[in-house]
C-alpha cells in the first residue's frame, strides 16, 4: 500500500487530473475511502489553509485546491456506504432577504466546503422562512448568513427570530458576516459568531462546533 503523498501534493497544487488519478490509484492499492478522505484530501486542505493563512498562497490557488478536492470526492463517493462519509458539519448558508450580493457568500461556502463542511447554499435574497424550512429539513449544525448592505442587515435579526419561533435556535449555531456586519452587531442579535472574512469563517465554524 503506497502512501498518499502524491495525492496530497496534487491537491495542494490544484492539479485536478493528477489528483483524481491518484485518488483512483489509492483506491486500487487498497486504501479505504475514509482514510483517503481524512489522511489525503482533508490533510491536503489543512496544509492549503495553513499556507493561505501565512500569506504564502493566494485565494484563487486555494479555491483551485478546494475544487480539486471536490473532484476527488466524486471519484471516492461510490466507495462510501450511503451516508457514511463523515463531515465536519452541515451548514446552511445564504445572503439574507433583500440582498442580492453573492461573491462573499460564495467564497465562504467554497472555503468551508474545502475544509470538510457539507454546505447547503440558499443563494441570495433568502427569506427567514427559507432558512427555517431548510433547517427543519436537514437539521444543520450551523446557519450562516451574509449581507453586503447596511439596509439588509436587519434580515439577519429577523432570520434569528424566525429560527427561535420554529424552536430551532437552540439546535443550531448562527454565524454572520459581510461588509457592514460587526462583532457588536452579532452580539446584539445574539448570533453565535461573527466572521470578518472567508478564512476566519472556517476557523470560527470549527471553534463554535468544538472541532479541530
Amino acid at each position: 500500500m503506497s502512501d498518499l503523498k502524491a495525492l496530497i501534493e496534487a491537491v495542494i497544487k490544484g492539479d485536478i487530473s493528477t489528483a483524481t488519478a491518484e485518488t483512483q490509484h489509492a483506491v486500487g492499492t487498497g486504501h479505504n475511502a475514509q482514510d483517503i478522505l481524512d489522511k489525503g484530501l482533508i490533510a491536503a486542505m489543512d496544509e492549503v489553509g495553513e499556507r493561505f493563512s501565512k500569506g504564502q498562497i493566494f485565494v484563487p490557488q486555494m479555491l483551485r485546491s478546494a475544487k480539486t478536492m471536490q473532484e476527488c470526492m466524486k471519484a471516492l463517493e461510490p466507495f462510501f456506504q450511503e451516508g457514511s462519509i463523515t463531515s465536519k458539519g452541515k451548514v446552511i448558508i445564504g445572503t439574507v432577504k433583500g440582498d442580492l450580493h453573492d461573491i462573499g457568500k460564495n467564497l465562504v461556502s467554497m472555503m468551508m466546503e474545502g475544509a470538510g463542511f457539507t454546505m447547503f447554499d440558499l443563494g441570495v435574497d433568502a427569506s427567514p422562512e427559507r432558512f427555517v424550512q431548510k433547517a427543519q429539513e436537514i437539521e444543520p449544525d450551523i446557519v450562516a448568513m451574509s449581507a453586503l448592505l447596511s439596509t439588509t442587515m436587519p434580515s439577519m435579526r429577523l432570520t434569528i427570530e424566525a429560527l427561535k419561533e420554529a424552536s430551532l435556535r437552540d439546535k443550531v449555531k448562527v454565524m454572520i458576516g459581510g461588509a457592514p456586519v460587526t462583532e457588536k452587531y452579532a452580539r446584539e442579535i445574539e448570533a453565535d459568531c461573527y466572521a470578518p472574512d472567508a478564512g476566519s469563517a472556517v476557523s470560527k465554524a470549527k471553534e463554535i462546533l468544538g472541532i479541530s
Partner: protein
Amino acid sequence: MEPAETPTFQPRLRVLNREQALVIHNAALEILEKTGFRMEHPGVVEMLTDAGCKVTNGDWLRLPAYLVEAALASAPKQIVLYDQRGNKAMPLVDGTPFYGTGSDATFTLDLETSQRRRVVLEDVANFARLVDGLENIAFAMSMGNPENVPVGDIYIHVFAEMVKNTNKPIVFIADSGRDIARIHGIACKVAGGEEELRKKPFLLNYSEAISPLRFPQNVMEKLIFCAEKGIPICLPSGSNAGGGAPVMLAGAMALGIAENLVGLVIHQLAGKGSPFLFGPNVSVLDMKSTVISYGCPEWSLTQAALADMRDEIYGLPIWAYAGASDAKVMDAQAGAEAMFSIISSMLSRCDVIHDVGFLEYGSTSSLEMVVMVNELVAMSRFFTEGIPVNEETLALEAIERVAHGGPGSIFLTDDHTFEHFMQAQFLPVLLDRNRYDSWKEAGAADLYQRCNSEAKRILAEHQVEPKTKEIVEEIDRILRGG
C-alpha cells in the same frame, strides 16, 4: 519687442490609444448583444423590449447597439452641479476635476481618541461641516451609515444631516424608490421647488447595480426616479477585477462599461436628456484578503483609461475615486496611496472624484484624512497647471538686475520675487518644511497630528450659513415620516 503669447501645456495622462478604447467599447457592446443582462424590474423589462431589446430567458435581455448609440446621443455632455444656494459650483464641462468624500462607511476614526468606532449621526454632520470649510473639497457624501438612526431610513437621515451642515453639492445614496422620493422632497424644499431643483441640481445620486450583469428592482426604481426628475445619477456596478468581473483589467472595464451602458439606455428612455455620469468603478479584489482595494494602482489606471474613452467615444462626464487608502490608520501608506490616486485622477482629468478620506478599503472614514487630501489636491493642482512661459515668468529683466546689481544683490530682495512668489510656488500649510529645531520646539507633530488639529480647528471655527427655520422644520417633518 513683445514676445508672442506661448500657450501653457498642462500635463495630461493618457493610458489608452484610440484603437484600444474602441476595442473595449466594442467588447462592451458584444456583451450586451450576445451575453445580455438580468433585469429584475418588470416595468423596465417592458420599456426595453418596447425599445428593441430581446428577452432571451425569463428576465435576461439582450440589447442592440443602436440603443446605446441613441442614448449616447441624447445624454447631455455637460452637467453643472450647483451649491445649495443656487450658485454654479461644479461645472463638469472643461475637464476640471472635483473632489469629494464617500459614503456608507461602517466605522470612523474618533477625532479625540483616534480609535476606530461605529459611525453615529453626529459624525455625518462633522464631515459635512468639514467639507464645507475646506477649499479643495467640492462636494459632500455621508462618510458613514450611523448606528443611531433607524436603518430603514438611514439614507434620509444622513441626507438631512448633510443639508443642515453644508451648502456644497451633495452626492447621496438611497435604498429604493421609497426613500429617494423623500430625499427628493427635502432637496426640493432646499432649492425652492421641484422645477428650481431640476434647473439647478445641487445633488447627484450614486447607485449600484450588481456585477456581473444584474439589475435589481430597487436600483432600477432609483434610476427611473432620477431620470424622470432630472437628478444627475451615476450607476457603477462593482465590476472589480477578480470579484464581480474578469481578473484582467480590459475585461473588467468592458463588463463595467457594458453595465453602465445598460443604465444609460434605461435612463435616457425614461428621461431623455437627463444627466448621467459615466463610470464603472473598476478596482481589484485583493487576492489575499478578498477586500476591494482602495489603494491599488489598478483603480487609478482603469479610471484614467475611462477618461481616455470619455474623450475618444462617450463624451459624458465621468465618476471616479481618489484620496483613499487600504491602511487602517493615517500612516505613510495612507499618504502614499491617497496621493497616487489624487494626482493620477487629476492628470487624467476625471470629473467627479469621490471617496476622499477613506481608510481601511472604504470601511473607515477619517476627518484627518479629508484634511490631508485637501492639501494634496492643492499640491496636485499646482503640478497639473504646468509651467507658464512668458516674459514675466522668464524674468530676464530680474536676472539682469540681480546679476549686475553688485554685492548683496539677491533674487529674494528683488521686486519680481515679491510680486510673484505667491503664484510661483506651492505654499503648503500642513506639509511640514520647518527646520528640524523649530519643528521639534513646536511639538514634533507628525502629519496625522497636524491634520487632527486642523480638523478640530475647522469644526470649532467654521460657520456654515444656516438653512432657514422653515426649511429645517420641513426637513424635520419629513424625517418624522410626514
